[in-house]
């Protein structure tokens, strides 16, 4: 499916930075196509296999949710896309194809052309993501000056427009972060993410720690901006109900792997993986009959030595003997609805197992 770019040969080719030598576009699905992404963190006792063989695509103008409990690797996956991993983290394998470029193969300099200009991120915790000793507006103007080559004055004009766009009074551009409320700070973070007209915005828990009403305001704002500016949005959230409300497609992660992916309707109304089903039940639905929310017994596995079989097997009620030894691949139970479970096959006996090796390998760029 993918056309491979001419393979660089020798040292000269390796030296050439990809952004200086624009090579042919790689054909791929959607705007962002993550294929077989695997990220490890190096620790003294061994490698933490934080993300293993994660694949998903985000089409232009689409919103995709990445959900799971804490420690499932959803933030690591996002940081791997932008190559913002801490020092002990490294992308072991996999490709991140964005708008015809393979980000996984880019140098640090090459990435600096992508970050903010093409892909921006709204960080978790608006309280801590802004510099407390600089005016909020100036912090937003900084990437504009850097990426668009505008003067500070021009950048501040743009910043005022952005403030207006996200619903903060433009007069407040020179306020320090502590003078803004939590919701306003989050709006400022969104303004910053939109500063250079990116094609894709990653929201890393953009509404966690906000009040329900402010959360609704922020989600509405993101939804409105997404439609107005035709943005693609990658939402990372532990809150499945937020994903259900805002996303077109969803990916549920467990222990660094994708366990279920598909449209949000597939995931919520036709959940197949035992983990997804249990996770959905853990969120109260105020419009249904009142019952005690259930919890998933046990703890997620240690990712230094992940279990040989299915990672969810020790906590699963529906396990069979082979679950402990056989690592299940992703099975397509319906068109575009993938499930990593041995039982998934019983849904459709003719569904081809999409094994780990099925991801096309890319070379070059």
């Amino acid at each position: 499916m993918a056309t491979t770019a001419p393979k660089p040969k020798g040292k000269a080719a390796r030296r050439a930075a990809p952004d200086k030598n624009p090579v042919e576009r790689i054909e791929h699905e959607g705007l962002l196509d993550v294929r077989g992404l695997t990220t490890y963190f190096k620790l003294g006792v061994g490698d933490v296999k934080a993300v293993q063989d994660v694949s998903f695509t985000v089409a232009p103008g689409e919103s995709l949710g990445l959900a799971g409990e804490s420690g499932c690797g959803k933030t690591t996956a996002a940081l791997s896309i932008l190559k913002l991993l801490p020092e002990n983290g490294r992308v072991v394998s996999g490709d991140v194809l964005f708008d015809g470029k393979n980000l996984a193969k880019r140098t640090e300099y090459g990435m600096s052309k992508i970050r903010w200009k093409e892909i921006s991120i709204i960080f978790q915790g608006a309280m801590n993501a802004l510099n407390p000793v600089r005016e909020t507006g100036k912090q937003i103007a900084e990437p504009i000056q850097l990426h668009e080559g505008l003067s500070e004055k021009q950048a501040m004009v743009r910043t005022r427009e952005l403030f207006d766009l996200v619903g903060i009074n433009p007069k407040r551009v020179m306020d320090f972060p502590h003078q803004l409320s939590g919701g306003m700070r989050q709006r400022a973070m969104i303004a910053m993410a939109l500063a250079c007209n990116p094609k894709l915005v990653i929201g890393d828990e953009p509404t966690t720690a906000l009040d329900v009403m402010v959360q609704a305001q922020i989600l509405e704002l993101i939804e409105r901006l997404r439609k107005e500016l035709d943005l693609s949005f990658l939402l990372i959230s532990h809150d499945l109900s937020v994903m259900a409300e805002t996303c077109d497609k969803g990916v549920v992660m467990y222990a660094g792997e994708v366990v279920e992916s598909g449209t949000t309707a597939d995931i919520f109304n036709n959940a197949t993986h035992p983990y997804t089903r249990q996770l959905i039940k853990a969120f109260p639905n105020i419009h249904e009959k009142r019952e005690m929310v259930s919890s998933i017994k046990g703890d997620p596995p240690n990712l230094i030595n992940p279990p040989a079989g299915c990672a969810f097997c020790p906590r699963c009620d529906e396990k069979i003997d082979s679950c402990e030894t056989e690592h299940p691949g992703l099975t397509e139970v319906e068109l575009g609805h993938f499930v990593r479970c041995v039982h998934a096959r019983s849904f459709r006996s003719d569904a081809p197992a999409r094994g780990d090796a099925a991801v096309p390998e890319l070379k070059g760029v």
Partner: protein
Amino acid sequence: MATVPEIGAGLDAPVSDGDVLFDIEDLEVYFPITEGFFKSMVSTEKKFVKAVDHISFQVKKGEILALVGESGCGKTTTGRALLRLEEATGGEILYKGQPVRKYSGKELREYRKKAQIIFQDPYNSINPKQTIFDIVAEPLEVNNVCSSEREKEEKVITAISEAGLRPASEYLYRYPHELSGGQRQRVCIAGATVLDPDVIVADEPVASLDVSIRNDILKLMVEEKEKLGVTYVFITHDLSLAWVISDRIAVMYLGRIVEIGDTEEVVANPQHPYTKALISVIPVPDPLARREHVILKGETPNPVDIPSGCRFHPRCPEAIDACKEIDPEDVHICGDHYAACIRIK
């Protein structure tokens, strides 16, 4: 317990389920704003943060009462005032008919044994240098409850295993850093229940926990309510969690209770526009059932300058002119369901 002095005797008075444990009348908690020297010379008007502004409600024995609202609505201050961690500037809190305000010395200490608190963040609310045993045993030692070491040990072990850390012996001599967030919160709950309290104020006990662990803690609260007869005042910003475990809900806005009543009744039949809006924006794990959201504009106003009339009118989607002038009284809906809005017929 034989050494309890006469003055605190009323505290041990038996109360059966359904009786009123707390009767809060016209409670007011204002915090004065300290201004600079010059300003204080120029203006004579003293300003206050009106955190809790004349509220009245009751807490019944053996129930879980949820105080729900956005940050800054006064729910935490109300909870703290119940325990006298915050002094009320007006009104009265009656605990088993006695005014909490008048407690001092030994009575206050007796009262604190009966009324405990669980804090939001289990990472900061327990001492990292103490073992789990020491943490849970501390309230017993401070209050001189146990006559022997053995009794103390037994009580600690019971509290820890009731809080779901089983077998207790495995946890006794561990340190907080060896435990996960959920386990730490269980330690906090064990510390709160070890004195066999009547009431526990749980201030956002699950806000910093993962979903699955969150549900375990909620279950534990319901279990302890049923088994030990503990009354809970459950403070949360998340109405859906309040809906899951509470018997009654009080919705607060800017220092006032705008709606109070039986949980299922309030959620199924909300009367106050604020409650309606809060319920409408709760995300639901069902993409096919996306509902109309009533999203309020702006943020909760400053509790120093409270809007005239109904304090909710600047953000209210249903406000009429009269709302600017009339401070609404509680309207009886049905049973013990009340809402404070002039538009309710």
